[in-house]
């Protein structure tokens, strides 16, 4: 899982440039991943009721607007800063 991805990434990045020392992280990363995966399977600390999907909800069509306000050029960011589009339970500023 994590460790395998890390290894693949390291091989890709360093294929043409010297020794991939970063691969040495695979051991510790693998150990941590195994620990957390098992711990969560036993303790289920990450689970809760998905009321957003498992409740009877009737919504009218969503309305709104999308004015363009800016452009960004040549950014290395892979997504908008602070992307929380899927973090439904993360509260943001409450408007009156």
């Amino acid at each position, binding site marked *: 899982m994590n*460790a395998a991805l890390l290894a693949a990434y390291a091989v890709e990045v360093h294929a043409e440039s010297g*020794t*991939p020392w970063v*691969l*040495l992280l*695979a*051991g*510790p990363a*693998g*150990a*941590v991943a*195994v*620990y957390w995966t*098992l*711990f969560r*399977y*036993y*303790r*289920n*600390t*990450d*689970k*809760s*009721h998905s*009321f*957003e999907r498992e*409740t*009877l*909800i*009737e*919504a*009218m069509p*969503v*309305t*709104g607007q*999308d*004015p*363009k*306000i*800016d*452009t*960004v*050029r040549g*950014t*290395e*960011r*892979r*997504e*908008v*800063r602070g*992307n*929380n*589009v899927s973090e*439904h*339970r993360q*509260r*943001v*500023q*409450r*408007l009156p």
Partner: protein
Amino acid sequence: MTAHGSAPEPPIADTSTAQQREADAGTPVVDTANAWLDDGVNRCARCGSTEIQLRVSTGHLVCLFCRHEWTEAHIEPLVAGEGSLRDLTGTVIASGATDLVADDGMLTMKCSGCGAEVVVNTAEATSSRCHWCRHLLTVNEQVPNGAVPDAVLPFSVTRDQAVEHIKLFAQKRRTFAHRRFVKEFTPGNVVGVYLPYMVVDSNASGDVHGVGEVETRQYTRGTGDNKRTVYDADVHRVERHVDLTVDDLTLESSTERAHMNAFVNTNNVINTILPFDTKNAVQWNASYLVGYTSERRDADVAALVPELEDQLLSIVRSQVQSSVKTYDRGVRWEGERLEVHGTRWVSMYLPVWLYSYYHDEGGTPMVHYIAVNGRTGETMGSVPVSQWRLVTAALVTGTVLESIVIAMLGLW
């Protein structure tokens, strides 16, 4: 209390008693009191016997004397009436969900083991153990009781079925479980308990605004070791509005149970086995509780409003998500507004089979549960782990990976 008439009324749904009256405060209260039980004694309609209990296989009450079976009326039509949820305005509170006052109908006892407040039916000798930690309860720890709920959803998963679910859940988690848990595992100790919830209908509108980005170009800059991928994007201000109704949102109405922090308690386990088919809940009759324990509600409507609004906001955010799919670089929501036009509150007992295990590790006590939804059989739990075994497994995996890597590097 007056004695029940010698010819008891048949227990059919009598909706005419569910009159809607305006309380002094102006909050409409829907009376859900079960009129034919108003002498406080539950009797069989056919023979007058008081030996009544739930027959789980049919979901009906059964008279143990003459085998007469019946069920109470569904609560939903009594409370909801004809109107659509979209027309719901103000705060409508069913009579069992009104603010709590001391009531001596049943006995609430405070557990000296874990501090839980447990309601016991005084006629039942079997329910004198705490369903959370199985401590014996003693009468001198009585505290003022909470109100009788509007409705109850009877158990339909039998004890044997629950035991099977719990066994299976634990068997799959044997290898790394704490040895003492494995040794002491006694699924037969499962108890059936009715937990208190507020079931809430809402009519609301939500607004969210933020910033979204659409990728317009992806290219590489630099050469050799400095090569990196960069992006161009259009930035939009995103505003969304949605009107919605939410039917039967279910909130824990025991403050203790509603407090969820997975690292100091395991209450999230009980939350995870939701939802229940609350549409099938029936008008309150204490006979449904015979053989089970229950927990008192200690939160009033006002105390639960923040949690309701929080969940409604989460629902709004979830509802608008599909409308912002074009923002392939995501959206940063910055502000949100909720306008609640109307809510309707019904207090309800929902059925849960609980297997609890009190675990004290290094002075940190924690009660672990395996809980089974008493209607759907959905099972969730928390099993104490053997840190020693877990760490060993992690180290072994890490060592194997590391040796492979070192071997690879050696060949480089």
